[in-house]
């Protein structure tokens, strides 16, 4: 177990270095010139050249990457071009908002997913099952930004929820609902399929033969065993969220790292883009790692194999 963990940690570390390298090369190769962006349209070639020199952009790719990487290993993500602040400080300031939104979204997803997935599995083949499956398909096929915009109109017209911003529980409701209700489709489908597997197992038949109530069978015997895929799913989802928040944060004016990234992209503020990409990659890798570590505790069969 300890060895496995160590190996996975080393792998995760290498993956992060790889993500850093690829992002770096991509951003280096792109036609957008950050020095020109900072200098403005009317700047002379000389000004642009001096800014380029100041930022170290005139050095060869490998030298630049090495400088970045050695900074990274010391926990230094560099300085923002536009805001002249440490990227790390900017990200840390934005992270709580994104994590709040993510946690709220995942709670909504998991609750809806488990509830409807279980109902569908128990009522398999019936009208309710079909409705749930259809709804889950609609959820995963719906464009996030459209749902966000329509909920926004709804909020404005009814005045139930604040239009945008951050700070109170009411603010988080609509963005979390956008992320959670749509994402719940995957969870419902997974729970349904896992539950159907479990409900066909011999021990469930035994439990039924013993005369246990179906409520007890579902909640005590079946559901705990059907929950494993959900744990893995949450791990993957954390990563999905990190990318998906850009859109939802843009619509709701949510001051998280998605918004930070979006502003940075428009200003070709490469250090921030790198920082956010790496933070997201870190979240994805950590999410998967946590899922792998938790799995054996939920399902002892994984421990022995």
């Amino acid at each position, binding site marked *: 177990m300890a060895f496995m963990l160590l190996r996975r940690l080393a792998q995760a570390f290498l993956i992060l270095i790889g993500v850093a390298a*690829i992002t770096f090369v991509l951003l280096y190769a792109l036609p957008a010139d950050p020095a020109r962006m900072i200098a403005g349209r009317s700047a002379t070639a000389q000004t642009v050249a001096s800014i380029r020199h100041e930022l170290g952009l005139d050095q060869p790719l490998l030298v630049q990457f090495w400088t970045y990487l050695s900074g990274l290993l010391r926990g230094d993500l560099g300085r923002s071009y536009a805001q002249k602040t440490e990227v790390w400080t900017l990200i840390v300031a934005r992270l709580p908002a994104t994590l709040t939104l993510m946690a709220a979204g995942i709670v909504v997803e998991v609750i809806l997913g488990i509830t409807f997935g279980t109902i569908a599995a128990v009522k398999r083949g019936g009208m309710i099952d079909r409705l749930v499956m259809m709804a889950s398909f609609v959820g995963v096929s719906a464009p996030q930004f459209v749902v966000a915009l329509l909920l926004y109109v709804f909020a404005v017209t009814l005045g139930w929820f604040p239009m945008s911003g951050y700070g109170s529980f009411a603010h988080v409701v609509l963005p979390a609902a956008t992320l959670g209700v749509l994402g719940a489709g995957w969870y419902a489908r997974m729970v349904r399929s896992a539950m159907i597997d479990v409900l066909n197992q011999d021990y469930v038949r035994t439990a039924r033969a013993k005369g246990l109530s179906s409520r007890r069978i579902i909640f005590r015997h079946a559901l705990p065993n059907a929950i494993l895929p959900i744990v893995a799913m949450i791990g993957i989802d954390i990563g999905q969220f990190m990318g998906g928040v850009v859109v939802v944060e843009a619509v709701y004016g949510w001051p998280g790292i998605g918004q930070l990234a979006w502003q940075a992209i428009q200003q070709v503020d490469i250090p921030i883009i790198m920082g956010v990409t790496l933070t997201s990659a870190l979240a994805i890798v950590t999410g998967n790692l946590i899922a792998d570590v938790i799995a054996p505790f939920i399902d002892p069969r994984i421990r022995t194999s």
Partner: protein
Amino acid sequence: MGIFRSLLRQPTAVFGLVVVIVVVALALAAPLIAPFSPDEQMFDGLTLEGAPMPPGGPFLLGTDTLGRDLLSRMLFGARTSLIIGLVANGVAVAIGLFIGIVAGYLRGLAGNILMRFTDLMMAFPALLLAIVLAALLKPSLWIVAMVIALVNWVQVARIVYTETRGLVERDFIMAERSLGAGHGRILFLHILPHLVPTAIVWGTLGIATTVLLEATLSFLGIGVQPPEPSWGNIIFESQSYFQAAPWLVFFPGLVILLTALAFNLVGDALRDILDPTQRGRG
């Protein structure tokens, strides 16, 4: 035709298939059936206050902020979305197939490197990567398609890899090899045909993802550029107006949803049919 008949037996798949056919037909026939030119700013396309016209009257779905007919723009937008859906997803499936097969067949060091690279791509926040690429390149229809292909091949590669590894172990491949078949013959004549179902399923499901991604990028203003209409950029263009004119978000949003839903339903039904072990579980 067995597959087709099985598809017709599932009501949801039939629904999906009908929607797909209708959307494709409308896109193909757009120049013939569109009531107006998609780019024409109509003299009577705005109210006296200069606001978009609500649905009804000569403009069936209303007009946009520049007084252009929404229905006509959406019909031509269907072409954009479908072209990107087909091209981007086709390229993604091709890349995924290639990397998956080669990695699964070679194993050893080369295969390992390819799969580690795939793992690495899995750790990339796909949407963020697409947004960064699309924003920093000068976006156009083909660039958007390539960006989407570059972030979407990974899942296909993983599945194809697993399947290829299973196939390579099978007796008939061993037999073929002992008869002296070369790598090319084994790969193209014996392994590739077994992966056709996977390619079909992902070729269908992937279009849903692609249509959604294109719409999202265009909504952010970094996808297909106006005046060329796409479902996403129609919403992008009317963003500042959508509270007064919600139909400008609703109708394009609805067709995006319906199209993605249709491809998802057909793809899921195909998966059930082509992979009997999955039947009734998804």
